[in-house]
């Protein structure tokens, strides 16, 4: 064994890589359980890919056969029901884990310098994941699959000039049909592997800047501990807890996240009374519906997803760390979380009566939170300074400023030297 490894090591940095990136990878010792969700998301992705590959062995991407093939999997394929329920529940689990991962990043300010690239690759991963989930939802070819795809693809019609062409290009037909189903299946199988590749970039960035931590302050080397065995055991314990909850839904509530209407085969001639997307799209769907104009709604919905990418620019406070030391920011965070839950509720219900107004208000608040953040951050900084910062925090800010100034000077010098 030793010989084999040393043979490999002469040709490939196996031992040094494992040592540097896994066993001895320095990790802040004060990470809480909120730091478990990244590795959990990785595990869920693996569950999705494995169950997905097995489903693809029995699934028929054909408008005439798709619905029956899913029932065939559920009834006749050995443990097909298990694989299918794991996959459908896995989609929910994936979004739940990712939303918690994002909430942690926002709360603890982990998107802040120097982790902007992690946040942005994360944003790309979120978009890819949403696309994958949306396309996967068409595959059972139920009523909600069909009409959900019909509604969402028709949104592209709001694009000026190109709208109508764009819809046909996306669907491969004038309406959602067999052509749409086959291309969605092809892409649904492809995109997860692109997600894998982007995760690699996400991880390379992580291992270059290292994990943030609850204090929000970059720790000294002495506060780091090796990833193994401390965080391997902690992540495995978190994984076990996750699997208990996940198994509960797979075995006892597998249809909780599947609309009853989706067990009716797709019927292009009969529109369901109330078309709802999957729960993880509900807040964004509520924003879409709250803008009376279609183009405006589409733009608002798009921005509502992409706006997270602007966090590093919007939050320019000099106070380091996240919500822990920043009472204004913390309040804003909770307002935002509650607002997203309210939007989710509004998105699940038909747009009637007072809910319409709650939808308007919650949408305005959603964007308002981001709009007010730069000003609030400044106000908060002044207020905290006036109240008096702890000396070590003040020192930290000073040193950050000094480093920044030094970097500027060095850059200017380099520029002059080039001339």
């Amino acid at each position, binding site marked *: 064994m030793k010989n084999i490894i040393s043979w490999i090591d002469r040709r490939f940095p196996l031992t040094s890589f494992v040592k540097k990136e896994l066993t001895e990878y320095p990790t802040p*010792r004060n990470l*809480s*359980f*909120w730091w478990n969700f990244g590795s959990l998301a990785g595990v869920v992705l693996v569950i999705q890919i494995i169950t997905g590959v097995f489903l693809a062995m029995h699934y028929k991407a054909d408008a005439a056969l798709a619905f029956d093939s899913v*029932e065939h999997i*559920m*009834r006749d394929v050995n443990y097909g*029901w*298990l694989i299918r*329920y794991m996959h459908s529940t896995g989609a929910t689990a994936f979004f*739940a884990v990712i939303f*918690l991962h994002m909430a942690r990043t926002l709360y603890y300010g982990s998107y802040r310098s120097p982790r902007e690239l992690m946040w942005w690759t994360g944003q790309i991963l979120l978009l890819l994941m949403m696309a994958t989930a949306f396309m996967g939802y068409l595959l059972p070819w139920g009523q909600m699959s069909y009409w959900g795809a019909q509604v969402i693809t028709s949104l592209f019609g709001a694009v000026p000039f190109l709208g109508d062409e764009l819809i046909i290009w996306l669907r491969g037909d004038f309406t959602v049909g067999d052509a749409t189903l086959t291309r969605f299946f092809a892409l649904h199988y492809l995109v997860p592997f692109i997600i894998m590749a982007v995760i690699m970039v996400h991880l390379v960035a992580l291992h270059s800047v290292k994990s943030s931590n609850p204090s929000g302050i970059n720790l000294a080397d002495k506060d780091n*501990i090796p990833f193994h*065995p*401390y965080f391997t*055991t*902690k992540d*495995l*314990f978190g994984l*076990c*807890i996750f*699997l*208990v*909850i996940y*198994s*509960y839904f*797979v*075995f*006892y509530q*597998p*249809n*909780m*996240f599947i609309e*009853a*209407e989706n*067990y*009716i085969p797709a019927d292009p001639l009969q529109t369901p009374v109330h078309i709802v997307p999957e*729960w993880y799209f509900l807040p964004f769907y509520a924003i879409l519906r709250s803008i009376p104009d279609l183009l405006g709604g589409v733009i608002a919905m798009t921005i509502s997803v992409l706006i997270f990418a602007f966090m590093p620019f919007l939050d320019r406070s000099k106070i380091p760390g996240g919500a822990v030391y920043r009472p204004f920011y913390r309040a804003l965070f909770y307002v935002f979380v509650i607002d997203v*839950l309210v939007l*989710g*509720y509004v998105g*699940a219900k038909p747009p009637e009566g007072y809910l319409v107004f709650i939808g308007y208000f919650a949408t305005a608040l959603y964007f308002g939170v981001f709009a007010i953040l730069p000003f609030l951050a400044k106000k908060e900084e002044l207020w905290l300074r006036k109240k008096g910062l702890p000396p070590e925090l003040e020192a930290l800010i000073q040193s950050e400023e000094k480093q920044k100034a030094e970097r500027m000077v060095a850059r200017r010098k380099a520029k002059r030297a080039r001339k």
Partner: protein
Amino acid sequence: MKNKKGLLLLLGVVLYSTQICASSNVSLLDGYEVSVEQDNLKKGATIYYNLCRLCHSLKYIKYQHLLDIGFSESEVNTLRQGKLMNKAIVSTSTPENAMKMFGMVPPDLSIMAKARKQGPEYIYSLMLSYVENSEGVYENQIFNGIKMPDVFSYSIAQGEQEKQAIQKDVADVASFLTWASDPHATERKSMGLGVIAYLVVLSGLMYLVMRRVWRRLE
């Protein structure tokens, strides 16, 4: 500790919100619980076979599947009347006839219990919501304008005893259709118990491992 409270709170919110989304808009009747007893399933299957099957197919259920709910081989042989064991159970009326009679083909019932919110309760309530209006014509209080007649004659049932007998029959049909919509449900639940028990023990052990490893730091 504070973190764990936060996580629990979040889980609570999620569970609560899914409950909101899952509840149905029509008011369904109380007093029905899905049965998984073979006696009830078999009775429900027999009623389906003699009554519902006149219009409704059960295309995902094959004759051989009936063996799983307590039918004997010879009983199934009587039912299938020479049709192959692996053939789906289909309606005795053709789609053309149904179109002529109702203007539509009555829906397949294989996954009906999953295709409606609170499906089993919905089926039970629907069958028992027929009333006779002042003109002597049946109506359904849950499904306005339903094409299906009051096949259990609940709207004209006389006396409590007759009503209760119909309620029992309908309950068995609803239970049978629930089984038909998800034939592996019993297996799934019993497997789930084992899996979750295993994972809970594993979580406990993993917690101890983690504690022991982290104690080295102190």
